[in-house]
């Protein structure tokens, strides 16, 4: 029996195991939406903006590890997805985005709601397709899912013209993908791994530096073993945050621009840096010339382009992190005595780090009558369980969350690291909650970022997604204000958000619930009430207006040149 293009799309999604999609209808996807009525196995969540649909699919993907799927119509619907796609691309998130397109005979005519999506998204997708012939559709969908989730994951866009959705053909979903130009390397070179094990065994001051790749390859257990067996201190990037328990004795927390004193000092003084699924981003390295100046560097990554892109590497290993780590652990296990002497030899190094930890722990000053944002974060941690999924927007609240919320389990911290997209956190929380209706999902936000996608409150209420939203309200675009304070003589150009918005009323307007705290003694009660209340809740905290994120490495400085909290 022949099927239409839109039926083939929906059948294929089911065969790929997709049960939830996020999207927004329109003229060139109306056939897909019509057929969707007959496909009860696929739950569609209607967001209030296409950008939010893509962020929601992204949050869904980060929380579950599955491929997130979003759909939008042609033209403005499609261009609205671009920020979401770029966000996913920078953080290597597996996603498939379907956009409608004007009928093939009209392509290139500047037709109504036409935009060249393959052209526009080429630099922000892992790959993209324009489907010109219905006979190619099933193969392209199969390839898109395969490309999105294998190797270094990433978003793949399928631009699907309306006439191809209507055309019919016999539907056969391919079993296999054949792409002669795409063969990711999964097994690390065993001789390189042996060399790496030797370098680790010879180290005096080793540090493990972990990025988002650890989450993507689900290798938290192996990572923990490597750190524990070798007793190596471990620091993570923002993206690597929840892949290693923050409270582990070997944890150094985050490194880089707003990293801990001890993480940055450890990296600056180490003699071996084992980089695992990280890409030496400029926010991590600061001035390259003074980054880990005494260290030999081992770099494990599935993407060869990440290696030697920003820093010199002494030993590259291309492969899946889990494969490489497990083989490295095997090699180390064969050398029991050498491991023992490593642990003995590196004891003074750990003692040195403990001194740094004591000297400059992460801290903030409490002030009477003023709510400190860090205190709010600490209280949320106290009052939530370890399974809670935390999303953030971008700015000061994001850094305070990274610093003071101690993550215990993988895939519990969802944040836009690479692109730094304000407005990410709320829709991402929506997607995560759709994937895990029973878990606590909390968007920690600022008053600036929150307003970039606040319309999604409607989606939360409509689908009964009980996301809790924490707004750390300082009436500023706080991170930019902090830079203006420190580097531009306190000229607060366009950073005060002068209009005092009543966020609790906003929550009520959408059919949610709102609570506000203005004094420190109200904080705990508001969080408790907020978490206990059914449905979406906004908890607004009027915080110290000019609190800064510290430590801070000024742009262009070495990461050991930190401005510390006094």
């Amino acid at each position, binding site marked *: 029996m022949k099927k239409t293009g839109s039926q083939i799309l929906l059948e294929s999604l089911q065969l790929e195991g997709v049960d939830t999609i996020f999207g927004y209808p329109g003229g060139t996807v109306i056939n897909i939406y019509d057929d969707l009525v007959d496909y009860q196995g696929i739950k569609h969540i209607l967001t209030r903006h296409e950008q939010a649909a893509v962020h929601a699919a992204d949050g869904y993907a980060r929380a579950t590890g599955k491929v997130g799927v979003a759909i939008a119509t042609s033209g403005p619907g499609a261009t609205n997805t671009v920020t979401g796609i770029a966000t996913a691309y920078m953080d290597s998130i597996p996603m498939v985005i379907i956009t409608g397109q004007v009928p093939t005979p009209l392509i290139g005519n500047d037709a109504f709601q036409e935009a060249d999506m393959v052209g526009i998204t*080429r630099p922000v997708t892992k790959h993209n397709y324009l489907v010109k012939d219905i006979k190619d559709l099933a193969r392209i969908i199969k390839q898109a899912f395969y490309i999105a989730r294998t190797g270094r994951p990433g978003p793949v866009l399928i631009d699907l013209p309306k006439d191809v959705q209507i055309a019919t053909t016999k539907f056969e979903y391919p079993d296999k993908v054949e792409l002669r*130009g795409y063969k990711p390397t999964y097994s690390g070179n065993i001789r390189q791994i042996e060399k790496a094990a030797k370098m680790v065994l010879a180290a005096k001051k080793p540090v493990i530096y972990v990025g988002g790749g650890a989450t993507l390859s689900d290798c938290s257990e192996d990572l923990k073993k490597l750190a524990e067996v070798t007793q190596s201190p471990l620091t993570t990037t923002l993206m690597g945050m929840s892949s290693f328990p923050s409270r582990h004795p070997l944890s150094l927390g985050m490194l880089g621009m707003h990293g801990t004193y001890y993480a940055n000092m450890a990296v600056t003084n180490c003699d071996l840096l084992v980089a695992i699924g990280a890409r030496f981003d400029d926010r991590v390295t600061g001035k390259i010339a003074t980054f880990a100046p005494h260290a030999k560097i081992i770099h494990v990554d599935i993407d060869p*382009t990440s290696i030697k892109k920003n820093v010199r590497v002494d030993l590259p290993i291309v492969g899946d992190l889990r494969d490489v780590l497990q083989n490295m652990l095997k090699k180390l296990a064969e050398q029991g005595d050498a491991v023992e002497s490593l642990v003995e030899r590196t004891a003074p190094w750990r003692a040195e780090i403990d001194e740094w930890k004591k000297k400059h722990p992460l801290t903030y000053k409490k002030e009477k009558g003023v709510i400190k944002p860090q205190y709010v974060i600490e209280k949320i941690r106290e009052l939530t369980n370890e399974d809670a999924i935390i999303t953030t927007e971008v700015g000061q609240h994001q850094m305070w969350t990274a610093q003071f919320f101690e993550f215990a389990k993988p895939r519990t911290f969802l944040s836009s690291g690479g692109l730094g997209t304000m407005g990410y956190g709320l829709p991402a929380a929506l997607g995560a909650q759709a994937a895990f209706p029973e878990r606590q999902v909390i968007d920690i936000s600022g008053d600036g970022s929150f307003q970039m996608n606040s319309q999604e409150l409607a989606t939360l209420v409509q689908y009964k997604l009980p996301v809790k939203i924490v707004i750390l309200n300082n009436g500023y675009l706080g991170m930019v204000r902090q830079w203006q304070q420190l580097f531009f003589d306190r000229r607060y150009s366009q950073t005060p958000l002068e209009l005092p918005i009543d966020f609790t009323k906003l929550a009520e307007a959408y059919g949610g619930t709102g609570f506000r705290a203005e004094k420190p003694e109200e904080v705990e009660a508001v969080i408790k009430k907020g978490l206990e209340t059914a449905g979406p809740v906004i908890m607004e905290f009027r915080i110290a207006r000019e609190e800064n994120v510290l430590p801070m490495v000024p742009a262009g400085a070495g990461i050991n040149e930190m401005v510390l909290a006094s």
Partner: protein
Amino acid sequence: MKHTISILVENEFGVLSRISGLFSGRGFNIESLSVAPTLDASISRMTIVTSGDEQILEQITKQLNKLIDTIKVIDFTGQDYVERDLAMVKVNAEDSTRAEVLRIADIFRSKVIDVTPRSYTLEVTGAPAKVDAIIELLRPMGIKEVVRTGPVVLGRGAKGWRSNE
């Protein structure tokens, strides 16, 4: 430093923009680019001349390899290869210079492929330096128009690209 790279790609819609977009998006140079299908019509071969230090070239080849449509990247730096550039040169040929133009063409084993009472169009093939040289010699006669393909290269020896993996 100049580098010549051959790229075997899927002969598909938009592949040229993926390659050229990669170069422009990452700030890499393209000095010349030529592309045409190979014997296997599903594969196109591009020859790109680019410049940059060793680290940049390593990134270029890695980034090219990362594209889904890229089947193989061959960097000819330090390898033995043959290289040809083709140019067509439309040059003034007044009474006083007609003989000189033909003499120069003859020295470079160049062919006259179009002729009018006031001009010759010459075809010249060779390594880029040879093409540069004839253009320099013809310049005083008054060149009206030049078109060059940019170099194409093949590795020396009996092996084809499929076998040198």
